[in-house]
């Protein structure tokens, strides 16, 4: 049976007269890789903040990991993981210190943290790096470590906010392999990216324009619907009509 992990109905956020997120309705399933796309200023970040319990919606409904974003935002924070390119790890702590710190934040016991960090170091083959400052390890490794740390507490869903900027293509592929692994474990991956070729790695994609979700489907469905050969083209056809943008 398909289990729904995120469900929204007419989810809306207003700031004064400005409707940042305009009645979006969609569902995301267990173990799915869901690409959440939109131009700068389309409302992606605001929507993600609502879904992760950081911002209270103005109206509508949203259930994340079985919890209500209106009434249980604190519970949601415990049941999700979050990683972004901008902030994820403490650069002036070592690899192992970061793992311990986030394990503690997510409420794991010392024993669980020990077990989890052993597994993680083995899996990433970080044996020689555990005592290095995060500042001193390559960006690609940081990204892998950041994702591992974000799912240390085995959340139902992990939010990845533009996780892969700036690395070489081989490293970017390795990161996507980790995303596949994560989804295989049954963790739903909710990801935003500016790399539209990456959208093709997702099971399904939504594209936000001016606060609304204007398209939702598998990459193949969307390409067919918009008679496009690539997601880049789909995105361009939709987003160039945006009234609101960052420009």
């Amino acid at each position, binding site marked *: 049976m398909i289990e729904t992990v995120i469900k929204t109905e007419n989810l809306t956020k207003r700031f004064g007269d400005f409707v940042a997120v305009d009645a979006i309705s969609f569902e995301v399933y267990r173990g799915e890789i869901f690409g959440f796309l939109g131009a*700068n200023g389309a409302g992606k970040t605001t929507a993600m903040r609502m879904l992760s319990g950081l911002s209270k919606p103005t109206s509508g409904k949203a259930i994340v990991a079985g919890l209500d974003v209106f009434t249980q935002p604190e519970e949601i924070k415990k049941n999700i993981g979050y990683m972004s390119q901008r902030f994820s790890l403490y650069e002036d702590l070592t690899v192992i210190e970061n793992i311990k710190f986030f394990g503690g934040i997510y409420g794991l016991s010392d024993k669980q943290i020990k077990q989890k960090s052993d597994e993680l170091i083995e899996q990433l083959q970080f044996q020689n790096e555990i005592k290095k400052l995060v500042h001193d390890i390559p960006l690609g490794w940081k990204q892998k470590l950041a994702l591992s740390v974000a799912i240390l507490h085995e959340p139902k869903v992990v939010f990845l906010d533009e996780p892969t900027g700036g*690395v*070489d293509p081989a490293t970017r*592929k390795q990161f996507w392999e980790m995303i596949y692994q994560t989804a295989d474990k049954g963790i739903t991956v909710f990801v935003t990216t500016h790399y539209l070729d990456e959208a093709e790695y997702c099971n399904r994609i939504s594209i936000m324009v001016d606060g609304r979700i204007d398209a939702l489907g598998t990459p193949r469905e969307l390409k067919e619907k918009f008679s496009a050969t690539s997601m880049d083209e789909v995105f361009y056809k939709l987003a160039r009509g945006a009234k609101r943008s960052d*420009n």
Partner: protein
Amino acid sequence: MPDITLDHISKTYNKNTLLALDDISFDVKKGELFGLIGPDGAGKTSLFRILTTLLLPDKGFATVSGFDVVKNYKSIRGIIGYMPGKFSLYQDLTVEENLNFFATVFKTTVEKNHDLIRDIYVQIEPFKKRRAGQLSGGMKQKLALCCALIHKPEVLFLDEPTTGVDAVSRREFWEMLKSLQKENITILVSTAYMDEATLCDRIGLIQSGKMLSVDTPENVLKAYPENLFAIKSKNVHKLLTDLRNFENTLQCYASGEYLHLSFKTENENSQNEVVVFLKEKGHDEIEMKMCKPSIEDCFIRLLAS
């Protein structure tokens, strides 16, 4: 005629322990749009800083518009425009004030070269009284480009101008570069987005301070040495693991909906063999077809050789 030349340029940091640029040589022709394609840490910014006379190379020679970057640095500074990767305008000056400031520094006026920036400037003009620090990413990018162009430079250096910018703005930005090219401005632009490579006249693929390849995007694609296959099955993650263990696999990695696969040695049976192998491993709905490599595939291939 080459407008930018690099002859065996090397640069190290941290008392020679960190090699940022390793024996780099290439030319950029007058009026060419040349893309430097590579990830963070590849050495792109060091290369820009040497060519814009902000950093001295350890070894090698380089010229811009015929001037030596070390001996004639002052001549170079007057004829180039540079847009660094990090937003470097005055955040507490308005759009208008920044533009006037840069025009004055280059001993010119905004009016004198308005033609060159008109198409870009109209997009930010409604916000001319706004402080630069208050602009959105896309607008900052356009203002920075205007400021880099205000003295009608002969050579334009753009260090990752499209990083973090959404796909629509990126496309518009490249259209602006194409129209600037018509003014016979030589443009050296760097990017980490592989898909932007095909918009350049020629590209240099750079990784860990080494130039992997310098050619037109078409020739880089043509030089891909093997046949490349796109392959998928019901469980992509398991497919990847299994294909990595297939003895004839040269490279296999995720690429959108499909995996990309190349063989160590290929003959007419290779495709059948892999399908048989995958069926034995329990894969369903196997789909396999030959595909054209992208710049990204070429980059990955070059990294492996």
